[in-house]
């Protein structure tokens, strides 16, 4: 989420040296869609938030499929001018969690002391959604999230889209959204990644993150997409910095996009029997002024991401099985400073498989890896837990999860994350005596959508 409370899969902290905030990583299924369409959750989700082929189609169609009594209007030429649900499509989400790391974290103030281990969060996250149709071809997914620290509701994932069929086979649409990949249809990309869509908000997580791996924050963008025969999907758009500020962006802001940052997505999907298989690629290039006291002119730093992804789903009545993965390579060019090297590479790999029996009992296993060029400024030492004693961005590990979904809108997950490498090292990775495995995390989540 935009306030940076929820951890994403790999991304967590501000990109070292870059100061980019954490991007949205929370993922939701929304009961208001079910209320609007009359479909049970399982029509669109294998188990939320992962989408079925039908769920992808519903999203691509701008969330407009509707089976509610409507307040309707029509022009003289019999064109529909209003189609409003009689009840607003609202939903509420509540998450509560418990987190325990293998070794307690150091106290944030008292040297040598330890923080309490075994953190309860209630709520970890609470969100209010407006999700559903607005007009005949227009729909929205809008998430407002409660910030427990500030005690206020803030803006979170938002995707407003317009879509229509050009003919029997070709659909086109426009999405206006605030987080690259929030509009994506497959659960390989960052915003709605599966199977490990939820992570502990309090446990340490690896410090190096790519732009499309969770580093893109405070942006707004417009993308144009087309789908042919539910088989070939293409999308192109651009993002611009859009933080909530009262004055035009200037030197007081950091990492301000220079112009528009282009985003693109290509995917091919094939469906047969109970299976679907997707293979695709996506990318984004962002040129940013570092700001932070420096005027927004002159040289920029450039992050150029290029990724491939693939997803397979088997959706049977009894057994459901999914495998997904994405490999992302980021080329960083630091013309405006902020890193020790003029340019760096950062590569991430994330694969996961999940199995559900009757959409009720599930298990998942995954592997993640971040590797890259060593850089003494970006990956600096000197900080406990978050530091990089070896100046390497590398983190690697495994993650496993058991799930119980007693009702279609209620999930309990027990997750264990095991780090073989954390922030560039195994033993004493932060130079202050902490080992990668000390960050191994046990996480228990309760998640309600209603």
């Amino acid at each position, binding site marked *: 989420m935009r306030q940076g409370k929820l951890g994403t899969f790999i991304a967590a902290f501000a990109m070292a040296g870059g100061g980019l905030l954490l991007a949205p990583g929370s993922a939701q299924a929304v009961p208001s869609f079910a209320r609007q369409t009359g*479909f049970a959750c399982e*029509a669109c989700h294998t188990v939320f938030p992962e989408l079925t082929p039908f769920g992808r189609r519903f999203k691509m169609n701008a969330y407009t499929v509707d*089976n*509610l009594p409507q307040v309707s209007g029509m022009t003289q030429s019999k064109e*529909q001018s209003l*189609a409003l649900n009689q009840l607003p499509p609202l939903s509420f989400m509540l998450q509560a969690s418990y987190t325990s790391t293998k070794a307690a974290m150091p106290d944030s103030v008292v040297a040598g002391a330890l923080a309490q281990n075994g953190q309860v969060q209630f709520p970890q996250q609470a969100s209010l959604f407006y999700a559903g149709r607005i007009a005949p071809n227009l729909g929205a997914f809008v998430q407002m999230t409660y910030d427990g620290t500030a005690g206020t509701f803030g803006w979170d994932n938002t995707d407003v889209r317009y879509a229509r069929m050009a003919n029997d086979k070709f659909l086109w649409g426009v999405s206006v959204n605030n987080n690259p990949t929030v509009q994506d249809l497959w659960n390989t990309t960052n915003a709605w990644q599966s199977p490990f869509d939820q992570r502990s908000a309090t446990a340490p997580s690896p410090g190096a993150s790519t732009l499309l791996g969770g580093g893109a924050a405070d942006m707004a963008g417009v993308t144009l997409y087309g789908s042919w025969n539910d088989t070939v999907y293409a999308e192109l758009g651009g993002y611009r910095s859009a933080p909530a500020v009262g004055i035009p962006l200037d030197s007081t802001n950091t990492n301000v996009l220079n112009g528009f940052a282009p985003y693109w997505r290509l995917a091919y999907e094939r469906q047969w*029997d109970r299976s679907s298989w997707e293979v695709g690629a996506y990318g984004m290039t962002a040129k940013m002024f570092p700001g932070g006291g420096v005027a927004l002119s002159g040289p920029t730093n450039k992050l150029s991401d290029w990724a491939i992804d693939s997803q397979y789903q088997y959706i049977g009545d009894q057994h459901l099985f999914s495998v997904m993965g994405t490999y992302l390579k980021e080329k960083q060019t630091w013309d405006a400073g902020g890193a020790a090297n003029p340019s760096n590479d950062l590569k991430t790999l994330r694969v996961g498989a999940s199995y559900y029996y009757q959409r009720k009992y599930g298990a998942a296993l995954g592997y993640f890896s971040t590797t890259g060029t060593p850089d003494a400024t970006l990956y600096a030492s000197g900080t406990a837990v978050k530091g990089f004693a070896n100046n390497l961005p590398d983190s690697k590990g495994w993650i496993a999860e058991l799930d119980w979904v007693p009702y279609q809108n209620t999930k309990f997950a027990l997750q264990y994350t095991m780090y073989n490498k954390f922030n560039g090292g195994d033993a004493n990775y932060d130079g202050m005596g902490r080992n990668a495995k000390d960050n191994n995390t046990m996480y228990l989540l309760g998640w309600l959508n209603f």
Partner: protein
Amino acid sequence: MKKIIAIAVGALLASGTGAALAQQDAKSLATGVCAACHGPEGHSISPVFPRLAGQQAAYIVLQLDAFRSHARGDPNAQAYMWGMASQLSDATMKALGDYYAAQKPAHEKPEYPDLLAEGKKIYTEGIPVQNVPACASCHGPKAEGAGAFPRLAGQHTDYLVAQLQGFQSGLRSNAPIMLGVVKTLSPEQMKAAATYAASR
């Protein structure tokens, strides 16, 4: 094409635009909405969703009405079709039935070829010792169906098996005749009959 995504066709009809529009919009509704699961022209890919191409119009109307009234309540009917059918008018249901009846039926290869011979026997002769009548007596010699009796030829075999299981367990209870027919059928016999019927 304008209303292709919006399933508010039902609402439109209620506002007095009449049966002509239902007829005209059945195709848009079918290609824009139904096709998401039932495939283009009713040729679905996943056996979770029945193929509708060439299905008996009267049978489609009966089922849509049963979804709307919640008389048909097997799990997938509840999950998908209760919502889908809730706002459909009688005229739209009829138009959808006519649309799908006019589409070219699919072909299904024998899913369990080893059971084909047994399936043929059950389909054409029934199983007298178990009081199972011949399927052909209602569904026709070529499994083409007739009126309220659905076409089985070209259907997903696994869909047919799931329906037989649903009749037996009571999950799908809107077909009184079938509830009696399947009482004594073994899982193997269901597969056999479905394989034969679907591959006609």
